[in-house]
């Protein structure tokens, strides 16, 4: 038996803290029997903040722990901090949303924590089995979260759809892992990397394993043509959960893509980069074109999330350290702007739950200045207008692609950004160019306003000083 050392424990300190926090939340909910007030969100935020601090503390480390199955490097630390930020923002938005939708569920916060834990494991996995376990921990928490609004049929259907298609795609991923295991004999990224770096023979077992692995990943990041579950699930799930699962899991899946395809399978890139190029082009185009035709803002954002996955895939195809750093930057920017946009939508939705019509936004920019300004920042950043973070994310990714000679990808990406500008700016036009229909009073709790302002400010700060963040990520890229 291999003994566990203190270094091992230290390497997974953020994960440990998140799990302890999740257990504490479950216990607190059980002891207080649903009369816990602000205790659960406060506990969760404290736990996530401590985990984020631990991840920053671990920043300088490198290498692997637990017998080479878990990375304890800067890249993992960076994404662990990002996941805690996503978790904290989601939790700050949640109490108000749970109140207006009448969901009383103490487990809600615990499930967000376990989902964050799963993402952290995915980001630091150095072994395909670890990756699978992290992915499943995250996904199973999200299935429950998507279906957590039990009084609403839409939420139950979203949970069901997410579960069936999520389990279906995990099975593909796992079968790919099994076939790779059959042909290589190990699941460690390092062994897989040396195998592909040597003179290997791409037999049928190996190629079908790679193909299945790619299909599994494509499902998880909702790349076209494996995207059909995502608009429905994003639309039906509770809106805070939609914001959470359109950002965190996507970031986690892309870290895993970088580690598996970008690093371990890099020597065999002739086998997969062509397929990934086609996926990226399809994803960008279909996501944007279909988003234009949506009548619900929530559904429009769901399709725009697909389009953003396409831009991120360009970074994976480019395959250089600079491209991976750009992907990391874009993921951070995307997380902030997408979460924020969903959060403002929750407040601006005035009709029955879950309609999110464009008309609801008419003239709200003047009636509610804070909401108008923050939503405009989020949408401008999603469009990619300087000096927001979204602009520099696209700039870095596309320039990395051009450097590697992927001119077509960069051109398609730019054209798609122009298409995206149409539907994002239409919302801003509605916010400011139209007259509001009657008076409206919108309750804006302090925590909610705080989280909105922080997200918008962070987008502007990393948009005005993009070099600094990019340098931090570049130092960490594997």
């Amino acid at each position, binding site marked *: 038996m291999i003994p566990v050392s203190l270094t091992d424990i230290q390497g997974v300190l953020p994960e440990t803290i998140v799990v302890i926090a999740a257990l504490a939340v479950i216990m607190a909910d059980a002891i207080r029997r649903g009369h816990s007030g602000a205790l659960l969100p406060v506990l969760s935020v404290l736990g996530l903040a401590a985990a984020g601090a631990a991840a920053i503390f671990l920043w300088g480390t490198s290498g692997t722990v637990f017998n080479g199955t878990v990375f304890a490097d800067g890249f993992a630390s960076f994404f662990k901090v990002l996941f805690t930020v996503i978790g904290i923002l989601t939790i700050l938005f949640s109490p108000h949303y749970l109140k207006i939708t009448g969901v009383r569920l103490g487990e809600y916060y615990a499930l967000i924590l376990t989902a964050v834990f799963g993402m952290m494991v995915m980001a630091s996995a150095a072994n395909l089995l670890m990756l699978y376990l992290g992915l499943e921990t995250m996904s*199973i928490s999200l299935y429950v979260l998507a279906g957590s609004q039990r009084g609403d049929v839409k939420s139950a259907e979203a949970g069901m759809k997410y579960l*069936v298609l999520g389990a*279906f795609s995990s099975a593909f991923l796992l079968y790919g892992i099994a076939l790779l295991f059959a042909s290589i004999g190990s699941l460690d990224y390092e062994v897989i990397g040396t195998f592909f770096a040597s003179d290997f023979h791409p037999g049928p077992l190996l190629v079908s394993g790679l193909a299945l692995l790619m299909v599994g990943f494509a499902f998880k990041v909702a790349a076209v043509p494996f995207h059909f579950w995502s608009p429905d699930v994003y639309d039906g799930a509770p809106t805070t959960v939609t914001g959470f699962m359109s950002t965190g899991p996507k970031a986690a899946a892309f870290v895993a893509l970088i580690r598996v395809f970008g690093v371990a399978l890099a020597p065999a890139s002739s086998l997969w980069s062509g397929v990934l190029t086609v996926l990226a082009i399809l994803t960008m185009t279909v996501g944007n074109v279909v988003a234009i035709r949506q009548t619900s803002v929530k559904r429009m954002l769901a399709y725009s999330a697909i389009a953003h996955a396409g831009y991120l895939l360009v970074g994976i195809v480019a395959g250089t350290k600079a491209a991976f750093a750009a992907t990391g930057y874009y993921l951070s920017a995307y997380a902030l702007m997408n979460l924020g946009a969903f959060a403002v939508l929750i407040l601006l939705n005035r009709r029955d739950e879950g309609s999110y019509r464009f008309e609801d936004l008419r003239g709200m920019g003047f009636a509610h200045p804070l909401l108008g300004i923050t939503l405009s920042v989020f949408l401008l950043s999603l469009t990619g207008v300087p000096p927001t973070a979204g602009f520099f994310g696209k700039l870095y990714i596309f320039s990395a692609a051009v450097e590697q000679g992927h001119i077509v990808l960069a051109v398609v990406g730019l054209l798609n950004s122009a298409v995206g500008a149409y539907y994002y700016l239409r919302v801003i036009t509605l916010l400011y160019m139209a007259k509001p229909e009657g008076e409206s009073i919108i309750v804006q709790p302090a925590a909610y306003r705080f989280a909105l302002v922080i997200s918008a400010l962070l987008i502007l700060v990393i948009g005005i000083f993009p070099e600094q963040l990019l340098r931090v990520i570049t130092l960490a890229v594997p």
Partner: protein
Amino acid sequence: MQIELTHYLLLAAVLFSIGVMGVLTRKNLIVILMSVELMLNAVNLTFVAVARYTADLTGQVIVFFVMCVAAAEVAVGLAILISIWRHRGTMHIDSVKLLKW
């Protein structure tokens, strides 16, 4: 006839394909969940066969993890099914229609 690793891998591939067809064509949500389980068990068969033929126990250990995850997935799946049953009174996939594909 000697039974080789290839036979096990082919059997697993056939089982996996049956599972995929089940998910894509069946109309009952419970049968769909069962088909997903079939896919996962096909993967398990692959792992066990490889472990046997390479005399490396890693494959067998992985199977325990996969079984554990599959059990958790089914538990959540059945819970969500009950939630749908309470709203709709049926397990038919066509009743899940509020969100169009």
